[in-house]
């Protein structure tokens, strides 16, 4: 089956993005480009690059069908390092460019790599509109809570009071919570993970790849030059145990040593952290990624205003909703079916005509 341009589609008419298995011969190395990687030594971007390269062969999408699109920022250099098709765009516009690619070519798997400045400051509007439209994009937001490439100004995710080059007396701004913003923008897949999470990060990437529609992952990424240690509350030895709340579908939400703590919904509509030993496991909220009502996912996103205390990680929401490109394609198909394929000569002489001889 092919689309009107002759691109291969699966039996549901939806491109091959979700096809699994297939091209099993590729390895991680096949996705490594010949360009020298130029991030600062120690930058969290390396780990994310490695994770992406490592999961690509599993996805069953041939290299030539993969496109990485980015804006400008340290993180946005990403496409150069992937041996796939790639566009290093301009600041903030990656979601727009990627929307063009994904809706022109449903047969491609399109990834967007963006930063907290690129994606949430200058590019915030394109991001929320892509999520609302549910364009078939995998969006990785590298959140280092700082502008790396321009050498250290605060970003829309920097915490209030942050002293940076542009805020020598401390920032007076409330940061965005990217998960809340994405949910408020109708996102169908929303997840969070951390650069150093060797297992969880690839797992989230796989989940995003498998989601048809916009998949948004916030990745906490350490910028060791301009904002080192921003995620220590989650990555330090102690914090790792105390503060990571892993969300798992259909499981009661528990965390801390031996799952001693949990999350409960009160009748008044609050989420609260409780000692499991005190309330009993039955009282705990059971996570449901697939609940269409985004209310609870949003409530979970409010548990932490920033990565400073107990913070949920994992998939907040994953629901099915018509995909933008699919809607477009099906209109093309039904128009061609109803009206017959376009006939240029007929079009040009449509309407009232007259002959002169």
């Amino acid at each position, binding site marked *: 089956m092919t689309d*009107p*341009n002759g691109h291969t589609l699966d039996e549901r008419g939806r491109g091959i993005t979700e096809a699994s298995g297939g091209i099993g011969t590729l390895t991680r190395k096949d996705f490594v*480009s010949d*360009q020298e990687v130029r991030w600062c030594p120690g930058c969290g971007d390396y780990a994310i690059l490695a994770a992406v390269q490592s999961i690509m062969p599993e996805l069953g999408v*041939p*290299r*030539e069908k*993969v*496109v*990485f*699109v980015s804006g*400008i920022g340290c993180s946005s250099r990403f*496409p*150069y390092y*992937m*041996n796939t*098709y*790639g*566009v*290093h*765009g*301009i600041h903030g*516009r990656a979601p*727009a*460019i*990627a*929307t*063009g*690619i994904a*809706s*022109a*070519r449903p*047969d*491609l798997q399109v990834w967007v790599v963006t930063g907290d400045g690129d994606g949430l400051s200058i590019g915030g*509007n*394109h991001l929320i*509109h892509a999520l609302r439209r549910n364009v078939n994009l995998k969006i990785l937001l590298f959140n280092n809570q700082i502008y790396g490439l321009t050498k250290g100004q605060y970003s829309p995710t920097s915490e209030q009071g942050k002293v940076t080059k542009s805020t020598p007396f401390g920032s007076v701004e409330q940061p965005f919570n990217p998960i809340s913003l994405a949910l408020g923008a109708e996102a169908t897949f929303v997840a969070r993970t951390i650069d150093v999470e060797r297992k969880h990060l690839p797992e989230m990437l796989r989940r995003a790849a498998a989601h048809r529609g916009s998949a948004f992952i916030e990745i906490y990424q350490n910028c060791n030059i301009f904002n080192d240690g921003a995620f220590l509350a989650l990555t330090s030895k102690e914090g790792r145990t105390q503060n990571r709340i892993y969300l798992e579908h259909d499981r009661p939400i528990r965390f801390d040593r031996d799952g001693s703590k949990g999350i409960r919904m009160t009748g008044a509509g609050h989420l609260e952290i409780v000692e499991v030993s005190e309330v009993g496991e039955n009282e705990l909220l059971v996570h449901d990624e697939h609940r269409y009502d985004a209310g609870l996912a949003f409530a979970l996103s409010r548990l932490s205003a920033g990565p400073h205390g107990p913070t949920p990680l994992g998939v907040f929401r994953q629901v099915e909703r018509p995909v933008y490109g699919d809607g*477009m394609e099906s*209109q*093309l198909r039904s*128009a*061609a079916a*109803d*009206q*017959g*394929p*376009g006939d*240029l*000569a007929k*079009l*040009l*002489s*449509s*309407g*009232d*005509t*007259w*002959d*002169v*001889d």
Partner: protein
Amino acid sequence: MTAQAAPSAHVRADRKELPRVVVRFAGDSGDGMQLTGDRFTSVSAAFGNDLVTMPDFPAEIRAPAGSLAGVSAFQIHFSDHDILTPGQPGVLVAMNPAALKANLGDVMRGGMLILNTDSFDKRNLEKVGFSSNPLEDGSLDSYQVYKIPMTSMTIDSVKGSGASKKEGERSKNMFALGVLSWMYSRPLEPTIEYLEKKFSKKESIANANVAALKAGHAFGETAELSAFEVKPATLAPGRYRRITGNQALAYGLIAASVQSKLPLFLGSYPITPASDVLHELARYKNFGVRTLQAEDEIAAIGMALGAAFSGHLGITTTSGPGLDLKSETLGLAISLELPLIVIDIQRGGPSTGLPTKTEQSDLLHAMYGRHGEAPLPIVASYSPASCFWAALESARIALKYMTPVILLSDGYIANGAEPWHIPTVDKLPDISVRFASQPNVGEDFWPYLRDDETLARPWAIPGTAGLEHRVGGLEKADGTGNISYDPDNHHLMTQLRQAKIKAIEEDIDPLEFDGSEDSRVLVLGWGGTYGTIGEVCRRLRARGRPVARAHLKHLNPMPKNTGEVLRRFDKVVVPELNMGQLSKLIRAEFLIETVSINCVRGLPFSSTELEAELEELIP
């Protein structure tokens, strides 16, 4: 100069023949003047007249009834010979005092005024500041005034149609059309058919409209209004249709898609006067046309660029303020060297300016409105029908040279209509492209290895195994396209990007001029002033004045012979609906003195005024 309908000939006798007539219909936004004009035009076109039309929309959606701001007008110029401009109205149909007030100044002295007397009540007169009633105070004495109580006659006529009084009253535009149809010998049938089809679901309304139309016609006959005839024009043989500039653009883009065998992808954000191209293209999904209404103009061009990267014919349409917003992405497109068509339908600026009015003031912005050295080709349409050509030509250049192209149109061209000799599809140029399919340097693929002749880079689209590559806005090494900060490479790439665009001058039609060889003055135009300049020069020459004219359709690069043509003349006069933008380009490029005639009134040049100004400049 051909005589016009208006003056003389008031006696009802045999239908008097006229070479050409200009009628303007004017009324409240809600009065349906656009539809009335459109119907009159359609019938005239089918009859075989040559014609040029010009709608004049109010800036407000629907300003208060009876206010000046709410006046909507439609002008049609029809003739028995080939004409070029909307002309000056000899006949004004005014449905209320506001319409009279707003338009009277444009009507020829001695012209006909056909007025709906029912609306000339105290309230309506006061609304627009008439202190006395012009129907009575003698202020219209130098015109031929026809006072017709159109509202009440319409209401009478629709009794029995089943329509409510209010619905019936809304048919008064058809009454007016009936009157005019009588006066200019236009058949009613096509309009009756049209109305019956349009209101097929609301029979009472169809009935009311038809009744009003017939009543108007009957009134003309009974009241023995003067009646005229304008014979068909002699046009080249073939099939014709009427087309507006925006429609011709849409068709031209679809033709480009068909002729290039690339699916069309439009990313656009609504803006007057460009929105209709989006609306039109959105209808042709059976041609595989994808239209995406983006969240803003930046996203719109970004999407089109993304589509271009993936092998589509990427297009974005806008007007001035939107072009501002596209600047940065245009620079990226230049750096990526991807084909892209950016259409700017110019309107009155700066800023929001006069959004529903025409102007030619984005030329220098199109040339230079991006940071860095960022040249790109510019094509300009010059009449409604020429938009078809302009779209195809822009696509041809974009695809052949792997470059974004700006196509400039304007509000006057966009909404104006003229008969269009429908082209034969077989004769349209083949602009098909070849995507890269093979490595081009050993086993590698270099995305910036240029074609020797065109300097275009290869276009390898996702899905092509083995040609995986990355492009971006940082400077690229010549050939490999890898990021390069090398100083000499940057200089070289800058030169190559410039040379590529410049060389297009070899690949476009040379500049032609018409006028006798002994003319010493050349009138040089571009864009939507084509018709007016042509008509004025024609008139001047008819009066023995030695003047030649040339019209630029490519603004960057200009045809190779441009300098040579200009240097043949002692004087180059450049009339523009701006403060002298082409003039600046000509002076900078050719060091030739130019005389500018500038007008920024939101309207086309008045041919009378332009004629007078040119006359003074001819030695």
